[in-house]
């Protein structure tokens, strides 16, 4: 199990890096797909198959396809020039590296995780992840769940406003 986790984790991080490094946006998108797949695998290790499959369905199957659509429609061609290291970029790079070191330092320090919730991997595998998620969504978290519908409605209105062809 632990070995699988490390393999998936490494590949996931590497492909996430690939998203940044790849010069062609299509390759970046494909790296992202790869990263999502590994995340899906990690979810399966945690006994939450439902989340894993939804991860792949939503991200790899829908969102990434839309990404690819946009990339292909706009016909974004890789420019061929690498990132120029001028002063602002260097400063930003320095800050980012510093922040990263700081954060990883934090995680190497003594971290205590809080009290475990009742939903441990064993509890999940006993009940089945779908049942539990459904119960939580329609029980304890019903208000946030319903509020998301407002969020989506707002986003749809926004898309219509931005995409509307005739402005009168």
């Amino acid at each position: 199990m632990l070995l699988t986790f490390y393999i998936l984790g490494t590949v996931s991080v590497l492909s996430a890096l690939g998203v940044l490094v790849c010069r062609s946006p299509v390759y970046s998108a494909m790296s992202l797909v790869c990263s999502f797949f590994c995340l899906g695998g990690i979810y399966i290790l945690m006994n939450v198959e439902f989340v894993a499959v939804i991860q792949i369905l939503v991200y790899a199957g829908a969102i990434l396809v839309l990404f690819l659509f946009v990339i292909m429609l706009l016909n974004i061609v890789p420019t061929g020039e690498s990132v120029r290291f001028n002063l602002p970029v260097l400063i930003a790079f320095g800050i980012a590296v510093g922040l990263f070191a700081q954060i990883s330092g934090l995680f190497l320090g003594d971290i205590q995780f809080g009290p475990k919730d009742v939903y441990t991997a064993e509890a999940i595998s006993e009940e089945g992840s779908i049942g539990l998620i459904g119960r939580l969504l329609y029980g304890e978290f019903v208000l946030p769940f319903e509020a998301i519908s407002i969020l989506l409605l707002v986003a749809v209105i926004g898309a219509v406003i931005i995409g509307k062809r005739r402005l009168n």
Partner: protein
Amino acid sequence: MDMLDFFPSSILQAADTSWQTVTIAQRASSAFRDHDLSGTIGYLLLGLLFTAGLLTVLGLVLIYAERKLAGHFQCRLGPMRVGWHGILQSAADGLKLLLKEDIVPENADKLLHLGAPVLSLMATVLTLAILPLSPTLQVVDLNIGVIYVTAVTSLGVLAILIAGWSSNNKWSLLGAMRAGAQIISYELSATLSLLVMVLLSGSLQLSEIIQSQSDGWWIWKSHLVGVIAFVTFLISTTAELNRTPFDLPEGESELTGGFHTEYSGLRFAFFFLAEFVNMFVASALIVTLFFGGWMPFYIGGWDGFNSIMGLIPPGIWFAGKSAFFIFLLMWFRWTFPRLRIDQLMSLEWKILLPVGFINIFLAALIVLFEWHF
């Protein structure tokens, strides 16, 4: 109430035998638990071989069937030369494709161009593994089966988009865009119909969905919602397969060959194979969800008839039912004219999707008040 009581007992009677699902993966893991290493490896190999064999056989049979049917629909004979009534035609074609030169266009994105067909076939094969062909012929039985199928088939879109883009050809790109838009749109109503069946059967596991139909198939049991879901699913799955009347992505008269214009040889064969096997997957899903999977056809009260039906092994039932829907899909192809792109989109977004939403609402009501049989 009389009607409700009357229906199930008279037409749809409970099956006498309850089927126990034992998948190949379950056998492998029980062998592993018994420290039977050779058994474990054997079952795992069996799973692989089964999937690969199914893929090959389906490819050969379906391509032959399509050509033969096309011929007869058009008052021709179809392939006749290779073997008896051309029965070896697809094998010969396969051989030809294997030996053909694999041409990659000069300005194509090599890596993606080569990878796309593999991804496409991979998406298909991954679904084959969970189809319950019979109680014992199923490689794995995931408890999230239905969503898994949706998730994995949606990867096929990625493959098509990449194939179109990497070919560096206008027609390919246009075809891929059309396919992508179409599949993404129709996936919504296909998923909605799937969810209706999930609501009715109370499970996402394919084997359990079949088990829930032991007292009658959902198409009979669920009043109108099952029928509406079936029709929606049939339409949207045809669209997802890019088959006529929804075959704009590869409309020959406009786009030469759509996303696979630049493919040749084995890689073309991969796309071709994936397309045909996807057709089987779609039919198998229809059978599993609406028509009782491998359950035999029983009529309540007709004991003699039922016992004869029960003699036919479940695998044959499954194959027969799937064959019927494959035939239906092929029939569509030679019957309906192609839709225009705006008709295609308004069919989905203005008709199927609202109908699907209302339907899932009705289904929820039916399940809540236990109105189904």
